[in-house]
């Protein structure tokens, strides 16, 4: 690339913006000149002003990600990292603010980008940064009353064994031990001083209800229709263990607070204990419907880091073709699933979903034959994919009653993409789109305006149904998407119905992409699919990277900080289903209880990703 540098040096828009900022805020803004890092570091006291300038004057109106990094032993500060984008497309403007670990306070940016709300709560919860002026600064993934901030480098989990994997106890003297055996009660668990389990009253529940209080005392004021209802967490309509505490006036929603974290396992802490490659199968477990796109996002972000080093070869063309094939098939899997479940939520119990899931099964058969697993695919590697597409999709009888199938893979893909899937999508369309039950329940419900969608950092179909044609595949293209011909699906009403229609449109666009990918797959037959060295500890140079992909549920980003060692210092997931929930209250206000279920269904969340 360096050989073809343009003669006249043009300044990239980001560079221009950074220079403008530096000119305007001479004393408070400096370049981040650590090796492998980019963007600017803003003085904490002026963060709000600079952020407002970035948003208002420079036009970076979409805040994709906000997360914190703990630099214990490297300056002993925690750093908040923001990635802001222009909704018209283009690269990120990265700005950071540092604050000491012992007294971590930063001003909130909820006034500039309301979408930062949940992300700041997450940073408070897991990293212990207090945000001055945040309207509702509570823990979000852990419960109120939890002691400590788990993502801090000096925080250890109860089953803590060692700081980094691989653990020394496994080899060469690996005498097996269950973790529960070497962790008797009390040992290894940190309790605050003078804490007694008998006298403890959890503040978790009151904290949830305090924020959403009725303003009436039910003991004296019984003549009221206003009630608080807790929807979930064990409720089929919430797609998992998700809970919404709603304040109702009669049947109308007045306020809503999402409560999450029931499936929280601190994916990011696990990721920081893992080596880079060990983390790949864990990304499968984020959005477990779309494991292959998660793999792709993670691979892209680590490849960005590896590209900083000397010995790195980008994936071959065939590897990229296979990646796109997998990503688009995953999109189809996800969208038919989402549409099926939306209908479930509307009360069409399981019939539409079952019809939709047949096609998903057929795609999963292909995934299973190629990757070895239907859902937890673990297929992408840094520098390509794990294995080429097999010649045949063929079962091998092993168990009693095993029935064998044997199909040519390319023929299978061809008729899947050219016949079966388009027919199924048309059928789904005919079945649901004009149905009066569907239109009555969905049209005009859960409206999110264009400006709100951008402000709340909504992503994916939620954003595009509100009239914003923003798609990472076009806004900041990756892989072979620039070569492919497809349209960004967009609808303009921002209601549940339009989110359904956008998904239907995207299904058709995915088919269009797949039809272009198939010949490429044939042309590149025989090329290698992996350019790495196939070692279990690839070298990842020091630096930071933010790799993002257009996942079926929205923009999935991985922010990774490497120190040039085997394990990352920081590994953060910008989870679309988590951040899309920021706007949930906005969408639900004024609607009826039954509509909340439809609205939640139209956002299409997966709790594996929301709670991480």
């Amino acid at each position, binding site marked *: 690339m360096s050989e073809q540098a343009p003669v006249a040096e043009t300044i990239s828009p980001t560079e221009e913006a950074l220079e403008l900022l530096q000119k305007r805020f001479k004393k408070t803004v400096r370049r981040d000149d650590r090796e492998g890092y980019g963007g600017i570091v803003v003085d904490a006291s002026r963060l709000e002003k600079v952020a407002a300038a970035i948003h208002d004057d420079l036009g970076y109106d979409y805040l994709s990600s906000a997360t914190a990094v703990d630099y214990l032993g490297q300056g002993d500060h925690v750093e908040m990292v923001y990635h802001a984008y222009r909704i018209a497309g283009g690269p990120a403007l990265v700005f950071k603010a540092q604050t000491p670990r012992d007294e971590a306070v930063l001003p909130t940016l909820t006034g500039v980008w309301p979408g930062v709300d949940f992300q700041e709560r997450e940073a408070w919860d897991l990293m212990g940064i207090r945000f001055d002026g945040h309207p509702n600064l509570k823990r979000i993934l852990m419960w109120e009353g939890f002691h400590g901030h788990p993502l801090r480098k000096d925080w250890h989990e109860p089953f803590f064994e060692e700081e980094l*994997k*691989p653990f020394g106890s*496994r*080899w*060469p*003297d*690996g*005498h*097996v*031990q*269950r973790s529960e055996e070497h962790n008797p009660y009390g040992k290894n668990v940190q309790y605050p001083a003078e804490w007694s389990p008998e006298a403890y009253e959890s503040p978790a529940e009151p904290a949830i209800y305090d924020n959403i209080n009725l303003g009436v005392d039910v003991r004296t004021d019984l003549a009221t229709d206003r009630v608080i209802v807790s929807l979930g967490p064990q409720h089929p309509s919430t797609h998992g263990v998700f809970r919404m505490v709603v304040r109702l006036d009669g049947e109308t929603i007045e306020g809503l607070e999402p409560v999450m974290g029931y499936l929280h396992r601190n994916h990011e802490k696990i990721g920081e204990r*893992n*080596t880079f*490659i*060990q*983390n790949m*199968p*864990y990304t499968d477990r984020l959005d477990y419907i779309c494991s292959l796109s998660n793999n792709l996002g993670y691979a892209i972000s680590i490849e960005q880091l590896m590209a900083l080093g000397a010995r790195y070869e980008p994936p071959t063309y065939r590897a990229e073709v296979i990646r796109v094939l997998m990503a688009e098939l995953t999109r189809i899997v996800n969208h038919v699933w989402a549409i099926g479940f939306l209908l479930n939520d509307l009360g069409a119990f399981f*019939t539409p979903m079952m*019809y939709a899931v*047949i096609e998903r099964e*057929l795609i999963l*058969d292909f995934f*299973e*034959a*190629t990757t*070895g*697993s239907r859902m*937890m695919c*673990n297929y992408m590697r840094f520098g390509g994919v*794990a*294995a080429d597409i*097999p010649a045949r*999709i*063929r*079962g*091998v*009888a*092993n*168990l*009693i009653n*095993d*029935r*064998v*199938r*044997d199909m040519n893979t390319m023929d*299978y893909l061809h*008729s*899947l993409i050219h*016949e079966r899937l388009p027919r199924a999508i048309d*059928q789904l369309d*005919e*079945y*649901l789109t*004009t*149905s*009066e*039950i569907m239109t009555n329940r969905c049209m005009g419900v859960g409206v999110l305006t264009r400006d709100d969608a951008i402000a709340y950092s909504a992503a994916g179909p939620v954003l595009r149904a509100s009239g914003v044609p923003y798609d990472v595949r076009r806004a900041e293209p990756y892989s072979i998407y620039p070569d492919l011909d497809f349209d960004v699906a967009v609808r303009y009403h921002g209601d549940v119905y339009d989110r359904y229609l956008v998904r239907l449109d995207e299904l058709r666009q995915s088919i269009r992409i797949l039809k272009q990918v198939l010949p490429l797959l044939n042309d590149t037959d025989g090329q290698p699919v992996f350019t790495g060295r*196939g070692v*279990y500890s690839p070298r990842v140079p020091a630096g930071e990277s933010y790799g993002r992909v257009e996942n079926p549920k929205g923009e999935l980003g991985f922010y990774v900080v490497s120190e040039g060692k085997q394990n990352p210092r920081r590994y953060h997931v910008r989870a679309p289903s988590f951040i899309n929930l920021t706007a949930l209250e906005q969408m639900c206000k004024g609607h009826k209880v039954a509509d909340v279920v439809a609205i939640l269904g139209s956002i299409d969340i997966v709790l594996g990703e929301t709670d991480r």
Partner: protein
Amino acid sequence: MYGLGIWRGLQVTLTHFVNTYLDDIKWGFRRHIHPDAFAERQSLAARGVFTVEYPDEKLAVPERFRFIPFLVVENYDHPDRPGYDWCTSCGICAKVCPPQCIWIVRGKHPDTGRPKPEPEAFFIDIDICMNCGYCAEFCPFDAIKMDHDYELASYDRTSAHIYDKQKLSKELRYWQSIAPTYAEQEADARGGWEHKDVLKQRDKAAKAAQAEVTDKTD
């Protein structure tokens, strides 16, 4: 007209309903018995009921399918090294394992105490194993492979779910039977059906013999 959309939708449901019976008639009401029926019912040509009636019929899994690793040992009727471990206890699988579910005790010579390429003990906690397949992917000796048997339910996890070397060991023949294509590809890469080290030694011996012969002729 109001209600037309629902009517159109119901037609789709009706089509699915009718297709089920057409499919039944097509196979002479022997959908579950006819030898060719299963492969078609579970293919792109499927029109009727798509479900598989487990456990009376099971989808055979493809060769790459991965579910809990096993250790490859030499066939029990092997002339030289029956039941011999292919594992050299190099520890790569234990190091790369993402959930760290592999425990290995490296073998030692009883007299000298020096390590020998053979595991003394090998454990996999199958409750922790996430079936990622890295151990098989990175094993330099093709000694650990992913199994296809997914029916592992047991009554007590504490006693039954930590597999030891005996439980993990399966003959090379088994690997050949569940993944014929890949077993053959690997054998080609190694240069024969034997263990890598055995082949290497054999090569060396052959070369030495060759050298001796040439020496003598000189």
